[in-house]
């Protein structure tokens, strides 16, 4: 499915994806069911199921090594799961060619900034629109009318997205010269340029300072409420997670250990011990309940 260039809004506000005349595809939920990923005998993700409702922010959290990245990579076709499905609308993401996933409306960002430092902000953002374009190598080489038209439309849309993220004056700057926080915003902008209906954010706050995180929180909020895009979020900054999420799924050792609204997750004892360890005696190599340092919650 090559969607064709959706209509752009050169100066107006950033409307819903696919807005402006073309009928937007109906909002879709992501239903992850029994996802299992095995690496050389080790089960990195074990029968994980959860649902991202349309127009919500859904966080996927867990201690280091819990399987969050594995889950992300299985959803985006980087890994092939051993079992399970991830239905987005009617499409099973786990059985599509990976480069097709973008065109059903799934956009993603990367944990370490995965942009091209020597390219301008504009070119980095334009890459996000690749799957929306139709011009082939020949049309591009000859600069046909359609190729030029498509390029103009893409540029207009990029300008709107840059304005939305406060990057309007940086479009011509080589990415490598931007401050870290701005680079992170470009990463987000590229994902938005994909016109996704579901946005996968991989640790968007990593390496950000407090004020950058604050503005990120607002951006995620806006993406959900103003653009109507569903968000699946992997993040370590729990303050951010608890502020923006509608629902939280917790993984540990590749298994789902909890799923619920943020407030419930924060006080869930299974989650607490997954993060902080069991409050028990650590002095003997065998399980026991001696009078060790037990903290107040138990």
């Amino acid at each position: 499915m090559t969607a064709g260039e959706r209509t752009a809004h050169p100066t107006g506000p950033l409307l819903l994806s696919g807005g402006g005349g073309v009928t937007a595809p109906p909002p879709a939920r992501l239903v992850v069911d029994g996802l299992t990923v095995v690496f050389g005998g080790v089960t990195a993700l074990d029968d994980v199921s959860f649902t991202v409702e349309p127009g919500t922010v859904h966080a996927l959290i867990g201690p280091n090594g819990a399987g969050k990245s594995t889950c992300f990579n299985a959803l985006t076709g980087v890994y092939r799961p051993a079992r399970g499905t991830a239905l987005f609308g009617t499409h099973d993401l786990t059985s599509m060619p990976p480069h097709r996933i973008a065109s059903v409306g799934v956009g993603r960002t990367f944990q370490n900034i995965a942009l091209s430092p020597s390219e301008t902000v504009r070119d980095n953002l334009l890459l996000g629109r690749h799957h929306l374009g139709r011009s082939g190598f020949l049309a591009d080489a000859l600069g046909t009318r359609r190729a030029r038209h498509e390029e103009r439309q893409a540029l207009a849309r990029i300008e709107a997205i840059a304005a939305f993220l406060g990057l309007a004056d940086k479009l011509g700057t080589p990415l490598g010269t931007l401050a870290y926080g701005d680079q992170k915003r470009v990463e987000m902008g590229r994902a938005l340029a994909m016109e996704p209906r579901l946005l996968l954010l991989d640790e968007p706050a990593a390496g950000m300072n407090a004020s950058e995180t604050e503005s990120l929180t607002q951006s995620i909020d806006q993406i959900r409420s103003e653009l109507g895009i569903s968000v699946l979020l992997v993040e370590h900054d729990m303050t951010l997670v608890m502020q923006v999420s509608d629902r939280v799924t917790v993984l540990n050792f590749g298994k789902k250990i909890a799923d619920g609204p943020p407030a419930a997750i924060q006080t869930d004892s299974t989650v607490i011990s997954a993060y902080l360890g069991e409050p028990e005696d650590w002095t003997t190599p065998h399980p026991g309940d001696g009078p060790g340092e037990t903290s107040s919650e138990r």
Partner: protein
Amino acid sequence: MLEVQDVTAVYGRSTLALQGVSLSVPAGGAVALLGSNGAGKSTLLKAISGILPATGGSLRGGTVRWEGQSLKNRDPAWIVRAGIVQVPEGRRVFARLTIEENLRAGGITCRNRKTTAQARDRVLALFPALEPRLSSPAGLLSGGEQQMLAIGRALMAAPRLLMLDEPSLGLAPLMVRQIAATIREIHGDGTSVLLVEQNAHMALSLVDSACVLEVGRVALEGTARELSQTDEIQRSYLGHGTDRTSA
């Protein structure tokens, strides 16, 4: 002793990873560095062990001293010889080398055959499970065994300060318990320990004092007893905010 004062570190050109962090590990002491992922714990260890530049980071301000000598701009080999050895996060055993070769790689800075032999004996006494499999590739070990090997490999350099980066990562509770017992034993032998952990309960049971990092700054510090009695740590791990409807 190790003295870290007011250290600021960045990645790339501008990512602040540490902002004015201070910490000290007394000779023979054990200190834990707690905090959720991304708080800067590993960066601090890398700054001490000298591999920060190799991973794209750099030390911008502050001092790191070990027994009075500055560790700034020292290469990692010098720091290992000076007695500080780090067990990396995620174990990172040399998967294609045998266990024996992994141990040799750990003791590579030691030129003295006798000390090396002693260190090897000590490691095999600590981890008897490794002995029968010395000639099999390290990649075939289980996660827990790899962690043992990673610690054993670091001990081959006969460190006076052992820094462990998340030794409990991805390990089942029983295995975590064994690793904890081992760390206690190593510390009991007189080796100073700087322990980076997410498993706060385990860490606090092993150390005298701890500090909690939050987004590159020290948010909380105190003795292990004090810290284990507050629920501040839990809040720094699981977030201060509540769900957004009430925010």
